[in-house]
């Protein structure tokens, strides 16, 4: 098929994205068990960041390769007047790329719509109140509902039964747990995970997502507790009380519940009671690590945009397009 210059660039970029993504997703699938083992040895917050980065790496890196290598090499080295056929393989890869993006965007859009519906329903059914300075919607008859719902401006939604059953200290600890989810923007990260394409049916990437969900809860527990043994016990008690009122299956894909599906409840309570492991205070990456990462990324970017790399990339693109 003969296509105009810019359409050819689009097809090539999409095909390139698909192929790079498949390679990186296979690699990440293969590395997943090792990454999970590494995560086990780190603090929960750091483990969650590692697993999130690993899960998003194939998509982000593929976009960067296309944007920083494929597109510049094509624009620089491909004469505009050239008439070139686009081969079936290239077209098929481009179509598959479009398909995975459509599926991912659909998944993300569906989650956003469901989240919007859920919040609207909470607004209709619930009464707004303030709990320890936090705005919350209190809903009657919602069992063990204690969650943060929404993406950019998440809202606390709590059932009246939970409020009636938790002591002041337990409620404070539970609110701090949700506050920790709020400050680390976990619902936004959930959306990113939904938007990240799933190219392979393997379990590796799914296990990274499950690992991220687990460590996110643990990290929020640690931040809520902040090394205070008394608060640690209060949070453990709050978890059990809320679980007694009924585990709430998450009604929206963009919400974090205090006791999500209850699967990890025993481990979380045991962890909180063995407070020795707890005590992580909102610890972000160290400045040296961030500086090193930025330096590394910058060096890679500059290297990838060098003439030799672009010429090599262009030769590969020539093979791909045939």
């Amino acid at each position: 098929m003969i296509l105009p210059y810019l359409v050819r660039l689009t097809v090539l970029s999409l095909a390139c994205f698909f192929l790079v993504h498949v390679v990186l997703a296979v690699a990440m699938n293969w590395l997943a068990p090792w990454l999970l083992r590494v995560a086990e040895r780190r603090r929960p917050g750091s483990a969650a960041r590692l697993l999130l980065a690993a899960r998003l790496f194939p998509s982000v890196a593929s976009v960067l390769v296309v944007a920083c290598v494929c597109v510049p090499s094509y624009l620089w080295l491909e004469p505009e007047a050239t008439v070139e056929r686009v081969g079936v393989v290239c077209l098929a890869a481009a179509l598959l790329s479009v398909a995975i993006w459509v599926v991912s965007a659909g998944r993300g859009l569906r989650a956003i719509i469901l989240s919007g519906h859920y919040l609207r329903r909470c607004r209709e059914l619930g009464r707004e109140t303030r709990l320890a300075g936090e705005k919350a919607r209190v809903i009657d008859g919602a069992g063990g509902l204690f969650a943060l719902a929404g993406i950019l401006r998440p809202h606390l939604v709590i059932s009246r039964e939970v409020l009636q059953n938790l002591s002041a200290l337990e409620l404070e600890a539970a609110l701090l747990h949700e506050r920790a989810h709020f400050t680390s923007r976990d619902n936004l990260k959930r959306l990113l995970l939904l938007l990240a394409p799933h190219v392979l049916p393997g379990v590796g990437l799914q296990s990274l997502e499950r690992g991220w969900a687990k460590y996110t809860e643990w990290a929020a527990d640690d931040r809520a507790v902040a090394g205070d043994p008394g608060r640690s016990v209060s949070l453990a008690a709050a978890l059990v009380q809320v679980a007694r009122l009924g585990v709430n299956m998450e009604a929206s894909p963009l919400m974090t519940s205090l006791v999500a599906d209850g699967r990890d409840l025993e481990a979380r309570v045991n962890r909180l009671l063995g407070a020795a492991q707890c005590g992580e205070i909102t610890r972000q990456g160290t400045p040296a690590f961030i500086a090193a990462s930025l330096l590394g990324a910058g060096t890679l970017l500059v290297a990838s945009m060098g003439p030799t790399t672009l010429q090599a990339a262009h030769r590969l693109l020539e093979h791909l397009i045939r």
Partner: protein
Amino acid sequence: MQAVDDKPAGLASLGHLEIAVMEILWEHGESNVHQVAQRLERPLAYTTVMTTLDRLYKKGWLERRKSERAYLYSTRQSREAWEHQAAEDFVTGYLVRPHPAGELLISCLVDAVGQNAKLLDELEKKIRLKRKELDRPGKS
């Protein structure tokens, strides 16, 4: 990659240890006998874990491939598919009987919830003990 059957044997045939092993493989992905044994909550003999993995493979729940001199095991189904099938097997298996009684089905569900209540009771007991420990003079 080898697989024994196309369709795995019924879920009801899985024991506690087999389910624990499946959980480990879902959580950590492909693992060898040694890695699974290390991740089990209670220490078990290497040969016990090896036999369990082999049994799960023969039942069709696992796939395995040889890497160097050891087998690497992985699950054939995702956790979600497995849980879906577990619920389906349970309900279908019950309803195909000649005279299925809804009350009995509900009673089973109540029992299952009861087990969860038992776990919550145990956790609450631990919390009470921890509170007492913290309330003792000299403890913060």
